[in-house]
């Protein structure tokens, strides 16, 4: 679902370019970004929408799972749909539904949403070389429908030199339609099912996260932060009340990654 290496590699690259004196400044890609014309129109929206449609249908799988889980957690169909339509962030929404108890842990919900979605800042920044040349309305408007999947497709499209500035918007519209539609289907079906454990529905959440983890696995570099997150979460779950162990596990992993960066 998330691939940050594209943006990372890109940023590394540009910073090395500024710092280096080995004559690699004439990198064809960098100069191409500056020269190629960038449009923002119907054609780009259409290309983004059609390219993303198969991927968006896959996102619908998560949407159905989210709708069912939201319903089990006590949200109404309307509330689940509103969340999908405005938040548009799959992983965060599924995690938050897991936190959904009575009374609502509002601070934990909002902080966890922030922590999970911080990656969007990096992804948005990676679009900078192209989006700087759009009007604020075009760039900020497109960023609102940015999700992991359509960001990845958009980076690929823009790097190929297509010059389609509206690709993110078009692909985001495809994601939005499937995500919201699937939420309605899942939430409606979720209310009909009786005893969750009997049909293994209580395992859906764990299964969704395991699938997400397989997609987020990024080779051996992922091993250390994930082990830190795992140990921290299990220890914190025993000693800290509520669901704070989720945030603690994530932050511990990020902290360790920051500390061991040079090594």
């Amino acid at each position, binding site marked *: *679902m*998330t691939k*940050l290496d594209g943006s*990372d590699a890109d940023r590394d690259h540009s910073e090395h370019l500024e710092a280096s004196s080995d004559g690699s400044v004439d990198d064809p890609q960098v100069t191409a970004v500056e020269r190629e014309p960038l449009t923002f129109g119907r054609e780009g929206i259409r290309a983004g929408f059609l390219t993303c449609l198969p991927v968006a249908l*896959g996102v619908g*799988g998560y949407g159905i799972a989210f709708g069912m889980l939201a319903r089990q957690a*006590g949200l*109404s*169909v309307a509330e689940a749909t*509103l969340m999908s339509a*405005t*938040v*548009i962030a799959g*992983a*965060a929404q599924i995690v938050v539904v*897991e936190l959904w108890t*009575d009374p*609502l842990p509002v601070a934990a919900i*909002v902080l966890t*949403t922030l*922590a999970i*979605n*911080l990656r*969007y*800042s*990096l*992804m*948005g*920044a*990676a679009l*900078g070389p192209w*989006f700087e040349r759009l009007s604020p309305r075009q760039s*900020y408007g497109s960023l609102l429908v940015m999700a992991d999947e359509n960001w990845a497709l958009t980076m690929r499209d823009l790097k190929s030199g297509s010059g389609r500035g509206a690709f993110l918007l078009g692909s985001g519209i495809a994601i939005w339609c499937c995500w919201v539609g699937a939420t309605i289907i899942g939430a409606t079906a979720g*209310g009909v099912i009786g005893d969750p454990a009997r049909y*293994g529905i209580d*395992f*859906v959440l*764990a*299964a*969704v996260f*395991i*699938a997400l*983890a*397989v*997609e*987020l696995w*990024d080779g051996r570099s992922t091993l250390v932060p994930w082990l830190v*997150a*795992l140990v921290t*979460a*299990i220890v914190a*779950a025993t000693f800290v009340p509520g669901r704070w162990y989720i*945030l603690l*596990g*994530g932050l511990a*992993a990020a902290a360790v*990654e*920051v500390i061991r*960066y*040079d090594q």
Partner: protein
Amino acid sequence: MISDGALALDPLVVGVILAMTLVTVLTKVGGFWLLRRIEVSERLEAGLSVLPGAIVIAILGPELAAGGPAEWGAAGIVVLVMWRTENILLALCGGIGAVVLFRALG
């Protein structure tokens, strides 16, 4: 908070959803906005990039630790199907089928 009607909208729930929307929008537009104003060190970037996966693991760890052989076996099935097919619906169906089967056996 538990709403009876499918179309019920609890004011507190709507408020929480709007707060989630606000922080998400800030993360989505914030990076692009900050780009030319503040330099994010590569070190911090490396830390932020592991957050999504680490949070998923932090959720799974205690959840699976609280389960038993049926859940662990089913978890293995999900990993296997997802890794082989990269199809989320297939992986979910496989995992749920497996957990029902393993529970019946155990």
